[in-house]
C-alpha cells in the first residue's frame, strides 16, 4: 500500500496534490551526519484531507516544509517530492517560487507570530495576489471577498486593521484567507489550531474543512492531536523518530490502532466521553531519528519488543485497514 506503485505511477502522481516517495533528510555529511527523516512516503490526493501525527521532534513539520522545498540549511534530501506534478527537490529557484505562489500554501501554528505585525491585514492578503500580477483594485476586491468567506464581519474595515487588533481565532481566519487567495491545489496546515482555545479550534477546523471541500484542495493536516486527526482526516499517517510507522483511514486508526506507538498515543490522551480510564503515559521520552536504536525506533519504549525488533527496520505491511511498520500488529489489535 505504501511501497511500490509499479503500473500507472505517472498517472497517479499527476493527479495527486502531494506525493512524497522515500524522502530522506540528512544534516551534514561524513561522520558527523545527523539523519532527520528516513524513508518517508506519503500521498495527498486532490480534495483529500490527510493527517500527519506525531510527537514534537518526530519530523512532521520537516516533512511538511520539504513539500515546499524548504529544507534546513546544510541538509541533503533524497527521494522524491512531487506537488501536483512538479518535482520539488529538483526544481530551480524560479520554479519553486512559482510553486509556492500558485500551487501550494501553508497555514502556520501561531497566527500572531506568522503575520508581519507592522503591516495591515489588507497588505498581507493582497501582497501575494499583487506578486502574481493582479492589479491593485482587483486584488483588494478579491481579498475582501475571501475575508467574507472565512467569516470575518466587515471585510472592508478588517483590511485596514493591524494584526494586533484581531483575536487569535480571527487572525487564523485571516491567515487561511491568505493561504487560499492563490487557489492552491495543496494546503499544508502545520498545527493550525494548537495556539487557539478549544471552541475557536473547532470553528477553525470546520472552516478549513469547508473551504477545502468547496475548492477540492488537498490538505495535509499536521498535528500532535491524534483524536483531532482521526476525526477530520480521510487518512492519517503516524510518524515516530523521522519515520512513518502507520498509515490508516481516520476512523480505523481510532478504533483499531495497529502500531504499538499509535495505541500508546491513544491511551495517553484523556477523553471526556465514556468510562473513566487511567491515562497511560508512554514510557521513556520521544527519540529523534539520530538517537533512536537499531531496528525499530520505538523498540526501547515498546512493551511488545523482543530481540527480533532490533534486527532491521520493520517493513510496512498490511494489517486490517492499516499499513504498519511493526512485526506484531496482531498483538496490538487482534
Amino acid at each position, binding site marked *: 500500500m505504501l511501497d511500490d506503485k509499479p503500473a500507472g505511477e505517472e498517472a497517479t502522481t499527476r493527479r495527486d496534490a502531494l506525493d512524497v516517495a522515500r524522502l530522506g533528510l540528512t544534516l551534514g555529511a561524513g561522520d558527523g551526519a545527523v539523519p532527520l527523516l528516513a524513508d518517508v512516503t506519503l500521498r495527498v490526493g486532490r480534495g483529500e484531507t490527510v493527517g500527519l501525527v506525531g510527537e514534537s521532534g518526530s519530523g512532521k513539520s520537516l516533512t511538511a516544509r520539504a513539500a*515546499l522545498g*524548504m529544507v534546513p*540549511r546544510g541538509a541533503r534530501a533524497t527521494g522524491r517530492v512531487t506537488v501536483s506534478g512538479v518535482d520539488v527537490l529538483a526544481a530551480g529557484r524560479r520554479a*519553486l*517560487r*512559482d*510553486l*509556492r*505562489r*500558485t500551487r501550494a*500554501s*501553508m497555514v*502556520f*501554528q*501561531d497566527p*500572531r*507570530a*506568522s*503575520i*508581519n*505585525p*507592522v*503591516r*495591515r491585514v489588507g497588505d498581507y492578503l493582497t*501582497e*501575494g495576489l499583487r*506578486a502574481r500580477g493582479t492589479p491593485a483594485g482587483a486584488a483588494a476586491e478579491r481579498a475582501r471577498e475571501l475575508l467574507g468567506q472565512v467569516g470575518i464581519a466587515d471585510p472592508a474595515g478588517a483590511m*485596514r486593521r*493591524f494584526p*494586533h487588533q484581531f483575536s487569535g481565532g480571527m487572525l487564523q481566519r485571516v491567515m487561511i484567507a*491568505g493561504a487560499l487567495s492563490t487557489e492552491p491545489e495543496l494546503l499544508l496546515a502545520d498545527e493550525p489550531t494548537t495556539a487557539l482555545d478549544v471552541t475557536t479550534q473547532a470553528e477553525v477546523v470546520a472552516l478549513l474543512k469547508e473551504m477545502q471541500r468547496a475548492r477540492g484542495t488537498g490538505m495535509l493536516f499536521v498535528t500532535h492531536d491524534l483524536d483531532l486527526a482521526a476525526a477530520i482526516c480521510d487518512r492519517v499517517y503516524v510518524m515516530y523518530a523521522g519515520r512513518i510507522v502507520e498509515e490508516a483511514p481516520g476512523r480505523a486508526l481510532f478504533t483499531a490502532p495497529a502500531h504499538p506507538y499509535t495505541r500508546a498515543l491513544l491511551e495517553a490522551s484523556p477523553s471526556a466521553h465514556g468510562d473513566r480510564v487511567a491515562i497511560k503515559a508512554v514510557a521513556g521520552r520521544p527519540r529523534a531519528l539520530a538517537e533512536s536504536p537499531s531496528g525499530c525506533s520505538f523498540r526501547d519504549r515498546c512493551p511488545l519488543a523482543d530481540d527480533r525488533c532490533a534486527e532491521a527496520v520493520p517493513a510496512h505491511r498490511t494489517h486490517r485497514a492499516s499499513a504498519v511498520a511493526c512485526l506484531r500488529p496482531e498483538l496490538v489489535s487482534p
Partner: protein
Amino acid sequence: MTLTIPALRARRPGFRRRPLGVRFAAAFLVLVAATGLLAPVLAPHSPDTTSLLNSLAPPGTAGHLLGTDSAGRDVLSRLMYGARFSLIAPLGVVLLAGVAGTAIGLLAARAGGWVDAVLSRGMDIVFSFPSLLLAMLVVAVFGPGLTAPVCALAVSYTPFVGRVVRNVAIQEGARPYMEGYRVMGFGEAWVTLRHLLPNIAPVLVAQSALSFGYALVDLASLSYLGLGVRPPDADWGSMISQAQSAILQGSPWSALAPGLVVLLTVVSVNVLGGHLGGSIGGKKEGT
C-alpha cells in the same frame, strides 16, 4: 499607501500626551533648527562683523543679548549661524552611516556564511579605529572643510549602525512570519526590505539619534582643533575654541554659551531618539 497616514496618526498619542522631557527636547531642537534656518532674518548682527572696541562684552549688554567674543562679534548671531553647520554636518554623517550601515548589516544578516564573516570582520576593523583620528587623517590629506570630515566620520560610524542592524535582523529573521512570506513565494530581497526593515526601524532610529549626538560632538571637536569649519564661518566647536583665551581673561561667557547649546542639543537628540525608538512599530511582543 495614502490610507496609511491618517490611521497611523489616529493611533499615536498627541504631542501633549508625551512625557515632559520629550516635549522639551523636541521643542528645543525645533527652536535650534528654526533659528539656524532663519538666521539671516533673526540674527541681530552680522556674525562676522568685528568691533574691537566692544570685545568681550558680558551677556545683557545693550544690543548683545549673549555678549560678544574676543573680536567683538555678537555671540547670539554667531550661535544662530553656527547652528547651520553644527546640525547639517552630523545629519549628513548619520544619513550616510545609516544607509551604509543598514545595507551592510542586512546583507550580513541575511546572506550569512562567508559574506557575514567578511562584512563583520571588516566592521570590527573600522570600529577599532578611533573616529576622530580617522577624521583628522582625512583632513590632513584633503584639507579642512566640512565634506572630508563628514565622509570620514560616516565611514567610522557605519559599523556602529551596521553591527546593531545585523544583530537585530538575525533575531527578527528567525521569527515565523519571515518564513511565512518565504512560503508565499517571495524572494529574500523582497522579504528583507519590505517586511524585515520596517520591523527593525525602532532600533535604527534610536541608534541614529545616538550617532547624531556623537557626530555632533566629534565635529565640534574637529572644529575646536581647527580642522573643521574654516574661519570666519562660525560653528559651535570653533566658537568654543576661539573663546579659550577669553576664559583666561576672566570672561567665560563666550565659551559657555556655545558649550551649553552643544550639550543641550546632544541631550535633546538622545532623549527624542530614545523615545521615538520605543514608540515606532507599536508593541514588541515575544522575541
